[in-house]
């Protein structure tokens, strides 16, 4: 529909939208009630997944299904999405920040010749303009940007926007236009799975535990993982811990790692260097455990305990267990 707010669906590669889509759809609905459409490029969508999008509030789902859409390749997706955008003339194209969506919408914006605002944390309609707020300069400043023309293309930082509440029984009209895939120049070779920790993914988790140099060695991360299992948290690390080889790079939080914005961040033996803060300062509640009362992380922490983390972590695990068993 012309004037629609598109929400590009990020899925779990198994036919279901990721829960971050509730946030994207929720924000789109706030900006453009009744004009929210989900656009889903995938090799296979499940019926449950389609239903979920409707319950979150998408009025219409456009499903572009083609075996060639997995694994994701920007050249293939952009051709299909640009063709659809040409026909439909959406007002906005919104996607969550994930590694592939960041690339995809940037390339799509270039194809359409329009502006892109990445990693936004807020939107406001001002007259007939959309103004997006985004952190810049290591999160020290907030930049407000606006578009010269539609479609307004943007990515949304996860865990920042209020998710739409699922309304059981609400359904979206589902359309399945013929999805043509251009021949890809990139040829898929293989996918190497990471060893799963069984804990949530860093960028999606509502609670994140971070262990820094104060962890003293790779063997000690088990105590953080134990805590993580109790409270359902992802376990990340500072760069000092990553560079020491204690944790793989994919767990690094910060400017040269992942940007996270959980409801709760718990830092253990992390000093709070500016580059670490760049990746976590939009967390809602920040807790710091450090034996140095002067550690800079205490400046942005909501709660702090000055103590040896090796004493605190087991106590915390015990207390949380008690609380959550109630």
């Amino acid at each position: 529909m012309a004037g629609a707010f598109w929400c590009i669906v990020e899925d779990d590669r198994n036919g279901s939208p990721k829960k971050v889509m509730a946030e994207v759809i929720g924000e789109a609905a706030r900006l453009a009630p009744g004009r929210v459409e989900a656009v889903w490029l995938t090799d296979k969508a499940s019926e449950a997944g389609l239903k979920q999008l409707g319950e979150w509030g998408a009025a219409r789902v456009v499903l572009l299904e083609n075996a060639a859409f997995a694994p994701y390749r920007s050249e293939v997706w952009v051709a299909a999405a640009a063709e659809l955008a040409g026909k439909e003339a959406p007002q906005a194209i919104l996607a969550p920040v994930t590694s592939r969506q960041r690339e995809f919408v940037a390339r799509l914006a270039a194809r359409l010749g329009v502006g892109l605002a990445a990693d936004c944390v807020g939107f406001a309609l001002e007259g007939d303009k959309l103004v997006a707020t985004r952190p810049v300069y290591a999160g020290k400043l907030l930049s407000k940007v606006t578009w010269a023309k539609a479609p307004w293309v943007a990515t949304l930082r996860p865990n920042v926007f209020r998710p739409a509440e699922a309304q059981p029984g609400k359904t979206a009209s589902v359309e399945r236009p013929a999805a043509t895939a251009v021949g890809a120049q990139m040829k898929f070779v293989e996918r190497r799975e990471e060893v799963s920790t069984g804990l949530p993914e860093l960028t999606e988790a509502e609670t994140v535990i971070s262990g820094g140099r104060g962890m003293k060695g790779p063997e000690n991360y088990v105590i953080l993982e134990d805590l993580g299992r109790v409270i359902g948290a992802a376990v990340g690390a500072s760069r000092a811990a990553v560079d020491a080889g204690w944790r793989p790079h994919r767990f690094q939080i910060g400017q040269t790692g992942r940007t996270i914005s959980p409801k709760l961040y718990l830092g253990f033996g992390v000093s709070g260097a500016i580059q670490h803060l760049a990746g976590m300062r939009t967390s809602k509640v920040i807790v710091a455990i450090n034996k140095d009362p002067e550690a800079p992380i205490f400046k942005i922490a909501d709660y702090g305990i000055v103590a040896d983390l090796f004493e605190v972590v087991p106590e915390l695990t015990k207390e949380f267990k008690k609380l959550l068993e109630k």
Partner: protein
Amino acid sequence: MKILVTIKQVPDTATQVKVAADGKTIDTTGITWIVSPYDEFAVEEALRIKEKRGQGEVVAVSLGPDRVKEALRSCLAMGCDRAIHLNDPAWAAADTLATARALAAVIKQESAQLVLCGRQAIDDDMGAVTAQLAELLGWPCAYWIMEETIDADAKSVRAARQVEGGLEVFDLPLPAVLAAQKGLNEPRYPTLKGIMGAKKKEIKDLKASDLGGAVEPSQLSVVGLQALPPRPPGRIIQGDVPTAVKELVRSLREDAKAI
């Protein structure tokens, strides 16, 4: 094989940044500038490719004002063969697309076979120029790469990109664009010889008119810049460890409702 590396000069993250009087840009007085860290990974990778192949040329390109020469000079000191500086007030308010258009024009002029970029520039953090370059050139692109190998006859590159949950490996025919992720390599420090040698290497200045004309207006414009609102002051929980931990858990549950 000719490799082009796009680099952006950014404020060192450790330096203070303040909003300028115009309320849209930063006050640049007293700022220490560095090459964006991801772009250093890109430079390093380009140099390694050249060294491994025993031939080729590595060209560093940057768009920005006069101060950018210093960043290009440090890439030359690392070992790049020459540099190109896109320096024209017409690009002063360039958005990612305008930046990508200018860079794509240079890449075409230079007939580069491989373009290495950073995952994102650590000041504006759009993480977009790379993908937009690939689009404008019609080249394949691999984002957030953790490793790459060029085949012997320089016809294709095998790249592993980082995605949620793992790595995805692709073969890309050349020419192609790659965006460097941390973990790809450990950038070298320039040697004294490198620094001395860099002074003699060429930095070519290009204006918008050298790239075939008018700069299209930016599609995205900055309407305001402000300091992050300060967080409300926090609280250090006192007492011995068991007492403090109990109080922390209670606060997280009852006051902050975070658990």
